[in-house]
């Protein structure tokens, strides 16, 4: 018997499902016991030569078997439901914990490990929650009853069976700690392999051109072997449980048989009781055998539990809103698309940054130091600066992805919120899905709006030349499109979001001169009713921009 407290808590969150699952399990078990009694009766009837009783007993056996069929179906359904609901709840919490801004700058974060936790990790707990937990409750409820009945029939048989069951349950606890330690190793190596594998699949083109396929293969082989060894080690401990259970079950049954034989030989009991002792002691071990079977099906899934706990998937989590954003986009349901967007659809006038400083936790100095900046609706505001001067960091600060060390960011006198902003990043990423899905991130959008936004972003003619227009599938991360196409689709997406603030990072970097001029014209026009802040290096995009701020030597200075 292995108790994993966090999973018990998860199961207990759905008391009705758990109770139904356990109750039906008890009924199924009682049907088994009833059948055992009927078989014992039929055997003794056969020996006594009472044909009437034999037929009656046989039809009882059959009837109970039919009843059990129905009960076990209902039980399977209830158990699967419990498992499904727990999985859903845990995955929801795990996703909430995964989609947070902290990940954006975390050099230790690995998408493949997270994928493993969110996918297999969550699915893995199903067997324990839906099968093992109800089985333990049922065992604790019913085994004592059977043992008591046996004690009444034959004290020795009852004692033997009780000892066997106890040994089977308590024995494996001896190496619980070892199991936990090895489980941790197993999940760590599973995550590590998953992380390296996903990374190499994503970067296979790079790996091939670098000629590093064989090097990567070696690394993966190493990881894969580590996983194999770790799995083997977990399996060996788990088999300990199986063996102990097996020994207890066999030993208990043989002991009960010996008692029954002694009874029969010494003439203390009629045949019925002898068979009853035998069959009931076998039934008493049934829940133990079931438990062992469920354990075997679920033990590997349990290794993910510490990992899930680490990311906070097994506890209710309140996200503290980072920085100035009073509502971060994850925990705030209103941060999502839909009707709230429309309410935010009114223009704002001034975006004001005062005394902003930021440094990465392990960095010796500020990336951005005491920065002041004002961007107004009506005309384009540009920020220029050398590579690494902190432009991207500034954007992440504005978006609330980073928490400033000092300073404030206000929109019309109130703190800027993530949902006030639409953004076109330097290397925009599109999702796997259609062009339309990618554009309409803010919810359902009319065709006319799509067309207009695409025209403004200078991508309409190309979209219309795609084989299926707006319904053309975009591959993972948008790699089926050129860098320029990705950039302009991202601009169209940002235009459609209709937020009061538009942040644009290098909007024309992948465009030729004509298209670049179109896009800049569009931005000038958009700036009439939104605050538009643009990062740019290109002198041609800066002509006609009244406010050009240079982000160098750690502070901004107007150069216009």
């Amino acid at each position: 018997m292995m108790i994993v407290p966090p999973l018990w808590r998860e199961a207990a969150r759905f008391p009705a499902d758990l109770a139904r699952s356990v109750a039906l399990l008890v009924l199924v078990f009682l049907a088994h016991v009833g059948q055992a009694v009927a078989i014992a009766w039929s055997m003794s009837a056969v020996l006594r030569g009472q044909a009437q009783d034999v037929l009656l007993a046989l039809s009882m056996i059959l009837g109970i078997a039919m009843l059990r069929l129905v009960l076990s179906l209902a039980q399977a359904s209830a158990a699967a439901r419990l498992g499904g609901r727990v999985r859903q709840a845990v995955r929801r919490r795990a996703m909430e914990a995964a989609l947070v801004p902290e990940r954006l700058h975390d050099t230790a974060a690995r998408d493949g490990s997270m994928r493993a936790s969110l996918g297999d990790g969550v699915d893995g707990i199903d067997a324990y929650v839906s099968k093992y937990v109800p089985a333990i409750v049922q065992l604790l409820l019913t085994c004592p009853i059977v043992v008591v009945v046996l004690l009444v029939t034959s004290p020795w048989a009852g004692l033997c069976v009780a000892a066997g069951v106890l040994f089977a349950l308590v024995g494996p606890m001896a190496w619980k700690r070892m199991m936990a330690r090895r489980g941790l190793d197993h999940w760590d190596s599973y995550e590590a392999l998953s992380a390296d594998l996903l990374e190499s699949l994503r970067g296979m083109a790079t790996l091939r051109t670098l000629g590093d396929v064989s090097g990567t293969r070696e690394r993966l082989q190493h990881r894969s072997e580590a996983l194999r060894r770790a799995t083997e080690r977990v399996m060996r401990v788990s088999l300990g449980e199986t063996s102990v259970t097996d020994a207890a079950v066999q030993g208990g049954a043989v002991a009960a048989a010996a008692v029954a034989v002694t009874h029969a030989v010494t003439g203390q009991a009629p045949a019925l009781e002898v068979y009853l002792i035998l069959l009931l002691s076998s039934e008493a071990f049934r829940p133990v055998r079931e438990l062992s079977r469920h354990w075997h099906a679920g033990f590997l899934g349990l290794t993910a539990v510490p990992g899930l706990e680490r990311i906070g998937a097994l506890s209710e989590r309140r996200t503290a809103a980072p920085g100035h954003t009073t509502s971060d986009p994850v925990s705030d349901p209103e941060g999502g698309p839909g009707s709230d967007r429309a309410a935010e659809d009114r223009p704002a006038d001034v975006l004001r940054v005062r005394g902003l400083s930021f440094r990465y936790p392990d960095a010796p100095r500020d990336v951005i130091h005491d920065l002041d900046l004002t961007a107004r609706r009506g005309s384009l505001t540009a920020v220029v600066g050398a590579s690494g001067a902190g432009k991207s960091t500034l954007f992440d600060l504005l978006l609330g992805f980073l928490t400033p060390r000092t300073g404030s960011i206000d929109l019309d006198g109130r703190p800027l919120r993530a949902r006030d902003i639409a953004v076109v990043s330097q290397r925009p990423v599109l999702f796997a899905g259609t062009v339309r899905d990618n554009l309409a991130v803010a919810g359902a959008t009319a065709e006319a709006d799509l067309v207009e936004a695409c025209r403004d972003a200078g991508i309409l003619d190309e979209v219309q030349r795609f084989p299926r227009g707006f319904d053309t599938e975009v591959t993972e991360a948008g790699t089926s499109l050129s860098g320029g196409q990705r950039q302009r689709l991202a601009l169209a997406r940002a235009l459609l979001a209709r937020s009061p603030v538009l942040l644009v990072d290098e909007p024309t970097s992948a465009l030729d001169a004509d298209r670049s001029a179109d896009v800049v014209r569009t931005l000038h026009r958009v700036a009439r009713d939104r605050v538009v802040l643009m990062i740019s290096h290109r002198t041609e995009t800066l002509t006609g921009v009244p406010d050009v701020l240079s982000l160098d030597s750690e502070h901004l200075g107007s150069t216009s």
Partner: protein
Amino acid sequence: MNTLSAFRAFRELLPVLRPEWRGMVWIYLLGTMSALGLAGLTVLTAWAVGHAVVERTPPGPLWWSLVLGLVLLRVLLTWREMDVSHALAYRVLARLRMALFDAYARSVPGRRREHSGRAAAVAMDDIEKLEFFYAHTVAQLGASLTLFAASLVTASLLLPEAALVMLLGAAVVASSALYWARTARRLGEREQRERSDLSERIVDALGALREVLAYGLAPRIIAETSAATARAAAIAQRRELLSQLVTALRELILTAVVIGVIATSATAAGVLSEGAQVRLPPAELPALVALALVGIAAVVDATDTLTRLHPLVSGAGRVAAGINRPPVVAVPRAPRQLPAGPLGLRFRDVSFSYEGRQPTLSSWSAELVPGEHVGLVGPSGSGKSTVIALAARLWDPSAGTVELVTADGGGVPVTDLDEAALRGAVALVDQDAMLFHGTVRDNLLRGCGPRSDGDLTLLLERVEAAAWIGLDDELGEGGVRLSGGQRARLCLARALARRPRVLLVDEVTASLDPATERLVSDVIAEFHGTVLIASHRAETLARLERVVDVAAAPHAVR
């Protein structure tokens, strides 16, 4: 999908077992002995009880030592069998994972891109699910059948009609392996699809996290995954119900068989009808019933195993398909090495088309003499990136050849080259180049011979990165904390660390600030080798010796 193609899916996965045949035989022997041990234990117990009840004689010391010995033996054998079979299965899974990686390394990026989240789901989740197939199927089916045969023979010696009932019962039980098999396979397929959809969605959301957060998409994605989980759970519930139904039916059949055996043997023992001929002593009755039960239970086990394979068919099919993916580049039969000295590049009537699209290139030709720096221009989507990808041999052209040209003008087709020789000579920097998790040093040394830290530091200085990053700094996946310009500098440094003879550059200067752009152009201009740059930036192109138009009418090689 019918039973035959399901069978085929698993058959494709059997060859990986070949090196393990000794282990399989060993598992079969262990499993058979263990099953026979349990059978012996059951029969012996029933025999003792029968004699005790009918004749009131206790079993002798031989019985006791046999029973205790069998209990011990059984525990040991079961443990050993599980241990050996699981260890074997894990070895096979590890081998499958590497076979799948090799297949992907030969076939990714395909002309038709596959989502890495799906590929990862096949390599991790689907393979993991095959543990059941490798650990519990082949040898165990053999052991079960052996046990059944043994008990059938014994029963037929004791009482032929009881053996007949057993045989009939076993046939009915075995037929249950096919009940609702199609539905089970379909449910398994849908579950597998949900799993790989989920994997895709998660990988997408994590890969585009900045966009997801900026547009407040997180709640929507969480709601979608939650709905997908509910869907998967509903499918799992139906699968469970189905398997429970089949199991319950099987138990019902088993019960009927037990009743049949009891009735037949009771008749034979003369306990049911007075005065009938007694062909079996009543004391042996329990032993015979136990024997029949043991035999049928073995068939039940085997059938149960087969039933549990149905939902795995679709995953098995995916893994098999993954391993047999067609490669995107042909492996040369006799790989050639490259002569020393400078190399040029020649495209001879090259054609290429992406799946289901108009040909991107048709009979396109161009030549770069060794040491020449050439620009590649053309409107968006005209095939610049394709030309670069063909030169980097990410794909083979559908017609024509790409050759590396030696100083004397002789050409070596890249398709004939040894992989390591080609990668050692040609380097690529493009806008999708990835930086990998690990330190800067790890990244610079990927696929590169040994280089001293001094060399690498010089490279970092050359791309003017030494001021903001050191060799021991962790980059994180994709260089999370770096800006586009910083990433481009590191990717360029990584390409140069390999001291290539041909440098291919795709649009890399486009997204850079003027300082980085100038620097990259400077570094490339100083590069003593052949350079082909796809770009539309006038500043970049101005510094090259010559410009080739990818959209120009086909022309012959000079």
